[in-house]
């Protein structure tokens, strides 16, 4: 499933390692949207984000030939590189403005969720929507990051673990805990007619 990496991405990656510049360009265009999307969750500062993306690709280009970068999933590799690069830059800027530094020197994952109005039928009570939205916003940053990587980026647990520097077990557990907690809110609060919801959206 999501854990499998497309063989052809590997072909592209290997072509790049063999010195094909067109493959390098193709890799850039293949992943740039996803990298920007992920990067924006880690920092709101465009300056840092763009510099980091530049560093990731320039560094990748320069590493070729010097050391063999054999990776099981290029996407996960790029995500890890981007996260590390952003983290490093955030620490640097914090050192410069040491006065306003707060204790955390981690790149905090922040995601903004908006109501997906069209999905919830009008019969959903305002209270339920509010509670659910609140609960989602209150998930830990880690849980939000796992949800983003798994559902929106389609990464498998082993890649998520690498990107977040946690164990596979922990990634899975954190996700399940989040889902189960949200599920319970629905059970308690929901009075909307899910049959109606289903027919309306099919």
């Amino acid at each position: 499933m999501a854990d499998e990496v497309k063989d052809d991405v590997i072909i592209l990656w290997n072509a790049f390692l063999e010195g094909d510049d067109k493959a390098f360009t193709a890799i850039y265009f293949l992943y740039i949207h996803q990298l920007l999307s992920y990067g924006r969750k880690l920092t709101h500062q465009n300056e840092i984000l763009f510099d980091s993306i530049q560093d990731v690709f320039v560094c990748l280009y320069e590493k070729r030939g010097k050391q063999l970068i054999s990776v099981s999933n290029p996407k996960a590799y790029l995500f890890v590189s981007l996260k590390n690069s952003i983290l490093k830059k955030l620490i640097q800027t914090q050192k410069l403005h040491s006065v306003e530094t707060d204790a955390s020197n981690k790149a905090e994952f922040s995601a903004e969720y908006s109501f997906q109005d069209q999905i919830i039928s009008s019969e959903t009570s305002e209270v339920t929507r509010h509670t659910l939205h609140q609960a989602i916003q209150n998930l830990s940053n880690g849980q939000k990051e796992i949800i983003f990587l798994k559902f929106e980026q389609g990464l498998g647990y082993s890649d998520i673990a690498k990107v977040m520097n946690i164990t596979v077990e922990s990634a899975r557990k954190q996700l399940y805990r989040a889902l189960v907690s949200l599920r319970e809110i629905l059970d308690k609060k929901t009075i909307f007619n899910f049959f109606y919801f289903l027919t309306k959206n099919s």
Partner: protein
Amino acid sequence: MDKFLDYFEDQHFVDWALNPTPELCKFWDTYLIDHPDEKKEIAYAKLLLTQLKQRNEKEECDVIASLYSRIAQHTDQGKTKKKLFPKLILPLLKYAAVAIVFLSLGILLVNQRNNSRVIAQYQALKVENNETEARLILSDGGKILLREDESTVEYDQEGKIIINHKDTISPKSASLETDMNQLVIPFGKNSSIRLPDGTNVFLNAGSILVYPPQFKEKTREVFLIGEGYFEVAHNPEIPFVVKTNDISILAVGTSFNVSAYPTDKTVETVLVEGSVVVKENNTNIFRKDIELKPGELAGFDREKLETSVQVVNVNSFVAWHKGYLQFESTELNRIVLKLERYYNIKIYLNNPTLGIRKITGKLMLREDRDRVLEVLASTSGFSLHKINETTYNLN
């Protein structure tokens, strides 16, 4: 509760909730009718997924373009350009990059989810633009030029590679499972290869075959772009799978032809003997696989995403691997395309309606190219003009 979590591990389910397609909707609607007891859990899971989706941010093209030009200037490519161009011209590079982006956006970003198409386009670009020499690229990065117009590659029992029946190469043993060899045949050349399992593959002009140095898995998998004729070594335990961008062909021990050029509208599989199963890669999840009988052609339409089966004269589809073309009331367009690929030439028709004229006959490809084209022209009532070494005109 476990069942509830299972939905989130099912990629089909996640896709349905986040990026529904008509096929996915149809599938899950059917599923719901068959499993009414799961209705509540499915509704909850789907609702949660949609609420967990991020606000969509659309990245501006110019952000992506200017980032790309920044990267290009910092990589070696960019550095050499810097030396070549005086400082004033440098800012223009940015616009060049923007142009590249719009070109690439067209090719590469049509569908971000469909990675394999991106790669096929890229590979097609490579076959067309790169050197004119057929070559074997080993998993360790070594490149072997095959030099002959009709080259051969054979694996012997000990894993050594014999090129053109004379040169022997002992490749370094591959360490990674993902390591792959590539046989790249440009237009105007063709080749045959005997794979480590004894399967013979004839590769037509403008094709790439990607295969592992050894078949260690439960299936023998190769990836094909272009056209290949396969004679699969019999081994019922380890099925042979030819993957293309759009379809996969599963065989045990049989002969068949696959034509999957990135620029063609249909991907054609023609079975000569034995049996094969043709699978569509990622279209309709509940469409049945197609089992072909000898003499049948399965044509996968890339636009309609549908496969249709018809009975054909097999020889006209596979004769190329024996060095000739045979056709029975075949459109001139199709013949011209085949000849253009085989000889790496361009043939222009004075009048487009000539292209739909039906032609029957046989062409010996290995004879002198001018003579072959002359035969085609005279037997079908056209006149041939040679414009230069690689360009011809028919009217």
